[in-house]
């Protein structure tokens, strides 16, 4: 049976330590340098106030209408992944993604064909969403355009709370 050598301070040990620890740290320094300008998605979580045209086209589906009539939706964010839900209607929750300034949401329920596709912009420091809500159900439903204004709330504007 081999034995584990006990500690003796010599140059070989010190050199091995320096080289073995320095190599990954150097790799990390290079990687951090490469990635330091990477950007992550903007902060979208919080409440979004819906602003829409008062006139509705004749063929609007019930789910579309319920979504817009709620007047406000809550957006939850985990990095790129988003969940949007009209106030008090978890049955109408949509899952989506943000890519650059583009947002896409789809219903996780196979029975629902609800989807939202929108583009983000910023006016006076406030995020705005110009979007269309569609329904790919059996009935012919017209796509509806709407706008939403971000209200991040006390937590959304800074860091996610504090310790």
């Amino acid at each position, binding site marked *: 049976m081999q034995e584990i050598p006990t500690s003796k301070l010599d140059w070989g040990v010190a050199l091995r330590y320096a080289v073995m620890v320095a190599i990954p740290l150097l*790799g990390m320094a290079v990687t951090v340098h490469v990635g330091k300008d990477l950007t992550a998605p903007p902060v979208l979580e919080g409440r979004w106030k819906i602003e829409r045209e008062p006139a509705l086209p004749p063929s609007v589906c019930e789910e579309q209408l319920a979504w817009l009539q709620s007047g406000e939706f809550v957006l939850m964010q985990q990095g790129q*992944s988003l969940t949007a839900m009209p106030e008090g209607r978890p049955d109408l929750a949509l899952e989506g993604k943000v890519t650059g300034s583009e947002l896409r949401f789809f219903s996780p329920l196979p029975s629902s064909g609800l989807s939202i596709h929108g583009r983000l912009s910023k006016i006076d420091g406030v995020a705005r969403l110009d979007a269309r809500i569609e329904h790919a159900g059996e009935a012919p439903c017209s796509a509806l355009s709407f706008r939403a204004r971000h209200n991040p709330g006390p937590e959304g504007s800074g860091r996610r709370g504090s*310790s």
Partner: protein
Amino acid sequence: MPDLQLLLIQVAFIVIVTKTAGLLVRAIGQPPVVGELAAGILLGPSVFGALAPQLSSTLFPPHSLAFLQTLSQVGLLLFMFMVGLEFQPRRIRRYGHVLFLASHFSMALVFFLCSAVSLFLYPKLSDNRVTYVEFSLFLGVALGVSAFPVLARIIRERGLGKSELGALSIGCAAVDDVTAWFLLASILSLVRSMHSSAPIWWTLAGLALFVIIVLLVIRPLLALILTDKRWKGPYSEIFISLVFVLLLCCAGVTEWLGIHLVFGAFLFGVAVPRKHGISEDLEAKLRPVTEVLLLPILYAVIGLRTSFGLLQNSEMWLYCALLFAVAVAGKAGGVATAARLSGVPLRESAGFGILMNTRGLMELVIAKIGLDVGIINAAVFSMLVLVALVTTGLTSPLLMMVYPRRQFAGEAAEKQGKISTIAANA
């Protein structure tokens, strides 16, 4: 004001569930902490909240969680103090060259791997309140840590306490602990400085001054007090009170510095003199209330904030698998490689790597700090909880494969004889 009746019911329910789970997993050869952590998750939205949403919201209404969170912080403070108390510099001396290399190489490797995968994960799992550097450094410290208390328990339960493998692992975990908490303190300083008007040198200078005061003023002062035998006798309660007041002060100072109270509690635990069995006395007094009452609350608070529902698609599970791979390759692979290159036999190197891959509560503590401070979101937190749970759960079965019980019992006895001979000759 807290609803006291509800709080008492919550605590009783949490203790019953976590301790029962601990006992159950013990029966299948796992350390109880695996069951207790899993019980915390069972109490959260992933299981209890999904199966019985009405009951879950009655038992854990959102407004009541703040009180549980406060109690869990007290538990965390006492737990970190005990981790500091368990730090024994003499454990490091014999195999110092292997321990420092294994600990620091594996940590550096985890940091490198985390910075590399963060190039891919950061744009997908974070948002623009956090920078790439903060995100990757934080993942590095969360995945690079080893769970000293769980490790000590696994080693004790498997009868490895007197083996060289046990000595190596306990020593390395001690080096890991000190390194990881200093790194975390530095990263939190960096994060705070990026988002506040106070420059980083202010926090770092404060940290350095605090460390100097604790180690060079408070520690010798406590040692001086302990030379008077009366402190062991009639005045022991006064001494214990003094220790607690100092513990709270240290935790308060590091919280004020913006580097979290756990660091102050840990450092003060390290600084308590190992004289007249005072650290054992303190541990014996604190352990029951911390382990039986307060840590289960921490597990529940962590579980209540863990939602596997956030890992809603295969993509998220892939990211989780990537973090798991980085954690295992960096820690277990790094430790085993460093040990082998330092002359440790192959089987011991593999066993050493497996043991050091135990993350347990330490990773969860760091992940919770990250979530509180806002470096990670709930999805990444849930991934880290899963990685902690799986790596801790894997330790015993993997160790059994590499180091069957029959084999290590024989080797431990043989090596104990050799160690005794070496010690006698030294």
